[in-house]
């Protein structure tokens, strides 16, 4: 799977798609392959403020639990309602399945983000 160029990526294998002052966050194809069949996604409450690098939830497969880390800081304005009953969409469409939508705050702090080419190099190693 090619990594979409309209996303930015973290070393923890999350992606972020920024649109104006909001952004969607999910996990990459590499991450979903490592995890295996996703069975449960634990997401934060709407209204919660998360800081860059902070754990905002967890994603569970049959064999393991992984924490989800925020690529950028912001306030959670929505969580994907589809994930409650269809967590497997993370496996089938990782770059199209958003987990949380945040309103970006003014904080300049952010995790170092990579573009698609840099991320692809990272996961090829």
């Amino acid at each position: 799977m090619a990594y979409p160029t309209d996303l930015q990526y973290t070393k923890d294998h999350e992606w972020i798609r920024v649109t104006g002052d909001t952004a969607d966050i999910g996990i990459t194809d590499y991450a979903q392959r490592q995890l295996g069949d996703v069975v449960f996604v634990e997401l934060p409450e709407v209204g919660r403020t998360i800081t860059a690098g902070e754990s905002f939830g967890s994603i569970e497969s049959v064999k393991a639990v992984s924490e989800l880390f925020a690529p950028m800081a912001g306030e959670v304005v929505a969580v994907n309602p589809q994930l409650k009953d269809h967590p497997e969409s993370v496996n089938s469409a990782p770059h199209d399945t958003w987990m949380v939508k945040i309103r970006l705050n003014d904080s300049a702090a952010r995790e170092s983000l990579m573009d698609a080419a840099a991320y692809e190099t990272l996961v090829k190693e």
Partner: protein
Amino acid sequence: MVPYAGWDMPVEYSGITAEHMAVRTRAGLFDVSHMGQIEVAGKNAVAAVDRVVCSDASLLKVGQAKYTGLLTPGGTFVDDVLVYRMAPSHFMLVANASNVKKDYAWIAEQIKVVGDAAAVDSSSRYALLALQGPASREVLQPLTGVELGDLRPYWFANGEVANARATISRTGYSGEDGFEIFVPPNMAERVWQAILESGRAADVIPCGLGARDTLRLEAAMRLYGNDIDESTTVLESGLEWTVSWDKQDFIGRDSLVEERERGLTRTLVGLEMTDRGIARHGYPVVSDQRQIGVVTSGTQTPYLKKAIALAYVPAALAAPGSEVEVDIRGRASRARVVPLPFYKRSR
């Protein structure tokens, strides 16, 4: 591929969920050659085996196998094994890969006092393939002259599979009908390919460690190292049915009799999560924020699609319907004790 008890093994081939469902609805093929085999033979083989296991080996017929415990003097598990009676004075114990050396050393030492019996670690002589699922029989029958319909569960027969010398036993670790096939290691690949070829029409697929674990958990089969070990007694782990109380004497008997008289303080039960969340190995079972037990195995399983677990809880909370909580990474989530097994195949 991951290292497992000194072996390099696949967690999955096509995905844990797909493999698990294949076994529940069709059939799947596992390479479980990592399991060990310890053979005990000699004039006093029966007495020797009877000394070290908690079931009555003398009651086994030739061709019959039984699940039993290899116990410490405290009535806890050195290992859980399947004992096969190969001949009147020849037994084979199939042991967990991680315990083979330990089991062999223990058995060899403990049977000395019996005399006229010897133990051999013959693990290198056997490869073991497990074909599990409702379609197992129809897939395996064309490859062997052994009449599989005559083989009852926990019985075995010698013969051949794909022209390789084989022992076929109607046993498994999945909760489904199936066969475990012992072959010489140099025949393993050929037999593996032959079974997959024969199973092509039924869409039989290879299955790895991940599905092996989710399948056995739904069937509430214990996993050594998780649910049972040298600190858990046969009685607390819910395996009293393996104990032959009438047997003369065996290592661990006195401790178990004492425990039975005293009553259990804790016991292994099945849990089903009622709050969202998945209970996993090591998570505390809590009540009023105090830890009262521990989860030994747990996950969300593909067939039942529920978060289930095995856990030790105080004996007072062991009745199905009892409500407990599991600490899932800092949050107390509610669970309910349910009867075991979680899944039982329809016959």
